């Protein structure tokens, strides 16, 4: 052979391989019928062309490959486009059998599946409905988890944003607000591109546009905050260095609510109470911009307001507390929430090291204020939603278990149907259908059911999402951002497919495994094989186990909720009306303010039904805390270790009104006025912490942490009350009296004789008559207390719902299987009865079967719950995750449910007529 021939034959081989690959574009049936021929014909044409012109042959070779691809895809598309009209088209290719799934076989199975659904519409409907319920609930829950936990925060490159806190390791409080001096120091951290700060609380501001003053919540942010967050105004602009101090940026919601989305608002001025000049509106932020989320403000930033309406610049000119008396950044007041951005490529660990180094250096340099203070760095996302993660993931797991139980029920029914169709399958198999083909058929059937369930679930999800949002407390961060978007729909689709596979696999495998001859020989007696019976029993045990675990979880949450509600807050919350009043600005000095308050008290006392009138600057269970560092006279502690305590002003007869008991000494009297010796009342936690074993009455303390303030004498010890929440232990706290420092906008508490809510109108009128601005935040203390457990109630509600669903589904599962078993054992029961068994023995037989299954599930589920106990413990209050009462109660409940579910089929079995059965 010449080299030329060699080359030609190599070229031919290469072309053949390429062409063979290109032919894969054709559907498999086409390839089988024509593939070899097609290639051979092309080759021959190429050979003929080669003898004429080599160039023509090369062109033709390329053309043949391109044609194979194009025509092949066209043939495939034809299949897709006309699949519904199949029989006519596949007629000549019936004999072509593929080992793989083919379009033809799938289409045939689809039609078969739809026919099955039509034949048993009730079964199809119930199955689809229960799957829709499961998939819908799961998707809705995932929607919440996605919006709250998974979606990035609405800032530019949010993953590199962190929050920085001062860590008071000695007191075990890692998330303290930062002092202005430390904030300035943190700005120098080399791993952070930018660091900004805001008040760790929202400030109520009162502004006046028309005649009526209106309230808004302001967040004080350093001017660079918006640039740090990577967001700009949608109208106008945000702050710049060197802006006038009296400027503001509005939130989109506030702009819509109060300004009717007026585009000319930028540049306008607004009169704000307490400001010397009108405030200029610089711009409006975009609609999706939320900052700060409540949880970003740290543990003390608990406010009634949920989000900021306006942002005001936090500058030295505007905020004198940023510097101390010497003009240096203030080291002793911790009240800033700090946000930073990591430089590109810098790890969180690195930033932690940098900032810790700064904190350590400052602790050495300013031992009097900074000793013992470290630093805590958390990703902003973690800070915002981290506390919700366990509860939400727990709920997602719970609703997932509900879907699993649904799947088991559906799988069980499919299994039973597969047994009923054993003959049909056996005949198909005998006629040459491969096992793979039978499995495919069963799987497609279950996928069709799951797809329909998924479609229903998507519709249901919309309602379920609305329902979840309706019962969710407004304090949950990011809940407003929940909307069923693309990821949720994708999730629903993925869950549907997984559900279809999960539901279909067992029946499919069982169908494929049943030997054909057996099914044919068994004839009309539809009896399950031993293996199938075992599978069925295992499924029921698993189902009961899951219901057990889920219900134990819900039960523990319920017990926690009850114990939270049972917590004694230290005051009497019934018959108590609360509201916030604002001092009119015309009362400028302390003396006239005290006079105003005393008049107001007299008017309120005169309202019929009022028993006591009291007030404070911060109400318990649902408002901010203010803390102060105090120095104990003769305490001998270095300044950095001066304790930080909560501080409130008591207005009128606060202790008597709230029902807070006086433990030692006295409360405030009219004699404790301006000019009189300064006095304070402390709570028992304060006394125990700072004067263990000693009497604090008569001792003196100083506030502010500067060591320069006036001394205050402790005159009494009052009972400790729960301020932050019912679940938090009371902290050391001191009260001053309004007569020695009248607050501007205190909360009032009014103890009533009857229903507190009934006095709302009368109280409002009295306050207007007294010349004060209309009161805000009128709420009964019961309402506040109920809101304070809103998140727990929300979690309990969902967990309880899932637990109840699991119980119902488990009951249905047990009922279904016991019914099936008794139907199969009719013959046996008939024989037993004929041989002299009593109906009650038959009853015992059936119920015993159900109880055995239930006990297996209860043991397994109990063990699982014990394994999961450590995870759940963090969500519980006042109850151990291994609480025997809950475990025992749920076990008894499940056993009872199993017995009840078995009763119906058992009674049916009792009534079997032996003669009739045996004749058949």
């Amino acid at each position, binding site marked *: 052979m010449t080299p030329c021939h060699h080359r030609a034959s190599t070229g031919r081989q290469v072309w053949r391989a390429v062409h063979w690959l290109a032919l894969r574009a054709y559907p498999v049936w086409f390839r089988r019928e024509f593939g070899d021929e097609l290639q051979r014909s092309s080759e021959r044409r190429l050979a003929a062309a080669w003898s004429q012109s080599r160039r023509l042959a090369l062109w033709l070779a390329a053309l*043949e490959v391109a044609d*194979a691809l194009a025509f092949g895809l066209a043939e495939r598309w034809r299949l897709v486009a006309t699949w519904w009209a199949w029989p006519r088209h596949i007629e000549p290719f019936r004999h072509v059998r593929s080992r793989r799934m083919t379009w033809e076989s799938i289409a045939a199975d689809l039609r078969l599946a739809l026919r099955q659904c039509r034949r048993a519409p009730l079964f199809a409907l119930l199955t689809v409905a229960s799957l829709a319920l499961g998939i819908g609930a799961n998707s809705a829950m995932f929607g919440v988890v996605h919006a709250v936990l998974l979606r990035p925060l609405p800032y530019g490159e949010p993953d590199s944003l962190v929050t920085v806190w001062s860590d008071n390791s000695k007191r075990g409080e890692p998330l303290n607000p930062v002092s202005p001096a430390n904030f300035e120091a943190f700005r120098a951290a080399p791993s952070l591109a930018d660091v900004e700060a805001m008040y760790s609380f929202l400030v109520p501001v009162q502004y006046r546009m028309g005649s009526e003053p209106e309230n808004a919540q302001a967040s004080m942010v350093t001017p660079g905050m918006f640039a740090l967050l990577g967001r700009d105004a949608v109208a106008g602009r945000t702050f710049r260095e060197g802006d006038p101090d009296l400027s503001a940026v509005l939130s989109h919601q506030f702009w819509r609510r109060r300004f009717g989305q007026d585009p000319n608002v930028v540049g306008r001025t607004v009169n704000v109470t307490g400001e010397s000049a009108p405030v200029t509106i610089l711009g409006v932020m975009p609609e999706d911009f939320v900052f700060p989320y409540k949880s970003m403000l740290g543990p003390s930033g608990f406010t009634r307001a949920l989000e900021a309406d306006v942002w005001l610049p936090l500058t030295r000119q505007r905020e004198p507390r940023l510097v101390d008396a010497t003009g240096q950044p203030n080291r002793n007041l911790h009240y800033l929430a700090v946000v930073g951005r990591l430089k590109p490529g810098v790890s969180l660990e690195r930033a932690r090291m940098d900032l810790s180094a700064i904190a350590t250096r400052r602790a050495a340099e300013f031992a009097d204020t900074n000793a013992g203070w470290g630093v805590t760095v958390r990703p902003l996302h973690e800070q915002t939603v981290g506390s919700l993660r366990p509860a939400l993931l727990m709920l997602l797991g719970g609703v997932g278990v509900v879907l699993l139980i649904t799947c088991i029920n559906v799988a069980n029914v499919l299994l039973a149907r597969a047994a009923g169709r054993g003959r049909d399958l056996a005949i198909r198999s005998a006629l040459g259908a491969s096992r793979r083909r039978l499995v495919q058929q069963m799987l497609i059937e279950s996928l069709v059911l799951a797809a329909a369930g998924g479609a229903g679930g998507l519709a249901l999800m919309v309602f379920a999402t609305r329902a979840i949002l309706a019962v969710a407390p407004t304090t949950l961060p990011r809940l407003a951002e929940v909307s069923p978007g693309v990821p949720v729909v994708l999730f629903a689709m993925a869950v549907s497919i997984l559900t279809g596979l999960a539901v279909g696999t067992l029946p499919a495998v069982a169908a494929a495994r049943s030997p054909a001859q057996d099914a044919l020989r068994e004839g009309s007696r539809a009896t399950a094989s031993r293996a199938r019976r075992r599978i069925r029993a295992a499924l029921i045990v698993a189902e009961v186990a899951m219901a057990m675990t889920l219900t134990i979880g819900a039960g523990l949450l319920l017990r926690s909720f009850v114990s939270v509600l049972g917590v004694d807050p230290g005051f009497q919350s019934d018959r108590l009306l609360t509201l916030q009043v604002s001092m009119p600005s015309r009362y400028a000095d302390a003396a006239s303010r005290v006079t105003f308050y005393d008049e107001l008290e007299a008017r309120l006392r005169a309202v019929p039904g009022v028993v006591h009138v009291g007030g404070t600057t911060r109400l318990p269970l649902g408002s901010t805390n203010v803390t102060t560092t105090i120095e104990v006279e003769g305490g001998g502690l270095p300044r950095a270790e001066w304790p930080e305590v909560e501080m409130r002003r008591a207005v009128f007869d606060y202790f008597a009104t709230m029902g807070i008991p006086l433990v030692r000494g006295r409360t405030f009297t009219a004699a404790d006025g301006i000019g009189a010796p300064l006095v304070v009342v402390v709570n028992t936690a304060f006394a125990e912490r700072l004067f263990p074993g000693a009497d604090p009455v008569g001792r003196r303390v100083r506030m502010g942490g500067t060591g320069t303030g006036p001394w205050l004498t402790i005159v009494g010890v009052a009972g400790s009350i729960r301020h932050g929440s019912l679940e938090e232990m009371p902290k050391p706290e001191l009260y001053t009296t309004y007569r020695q420092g009248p607050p501007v906008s205190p909360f009032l508490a009014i103890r009533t004789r009857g229903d507190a809510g009934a006095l709302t109108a009368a109280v409002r009128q009295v306050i207007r008559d007294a010349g004060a601005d209309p009161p805000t935040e009128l709420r009964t203390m019961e309402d506040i207390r109920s809101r304070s457990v809103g998140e727990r109630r929300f979690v309990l509600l969902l967990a309880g719902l899932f637990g109840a669903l699991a119980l119902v589904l488990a009951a249905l599962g047990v009922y279904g299987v016991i019914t099936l078993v008794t139907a199969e054992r009719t013959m046996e029961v008939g024989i037993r009865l004929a041989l002299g068994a009593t109906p009650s023995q038959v009853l015992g037989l059936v119920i015993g079967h159900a109880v055995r299954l239930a006990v297996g599930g209860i043991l397994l589920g109990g063990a699982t719950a014990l394994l999961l106990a450590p995870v759940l413990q963090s969500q519980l209050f006042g109850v151990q995750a291994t609480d025997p009462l809950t475990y025992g109660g749920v076990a008894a409940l499940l056993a009872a449910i199993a017995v009840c579910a078995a009763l119906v089929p058992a009674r049916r079995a009792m009534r079997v007529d032996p003669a009739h059965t045996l004749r058949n």
Partner: protein
Amino acid sequence: MPFRPPGASLPLTPISFEILLALLDGDRHGYAILQSVENRVAGVLPMRTGTIYRALARLMEEGLIDRSASVAEADDERRRYYRITAHGRSVARAEARRLADQVDAARARRLLPEPRR
């Protein structure tokens, strides 16, 4: 195969018609059909290899042609032979009539000369 009137498949594509014509001479395998068609209409119809086989597939689906059992010559036995079915014959006839009718119409309008007798 359910009964279908021959007219249901009309009009045939030119290639399909040519394939039926080629099979009227006897059972053939794919390449033989290709050659026969190419010899007749080379240059008039674009003759791509894939086109022929796709047309064969359509004709089979329609039941106009069928696999043939006969193995002619000493050819490779893997080679598949096709034959025209009775239904295919009547469809081809109907198509020929349809074409003839069209040609007659063209002649009536003097597009073509009258055929020589």
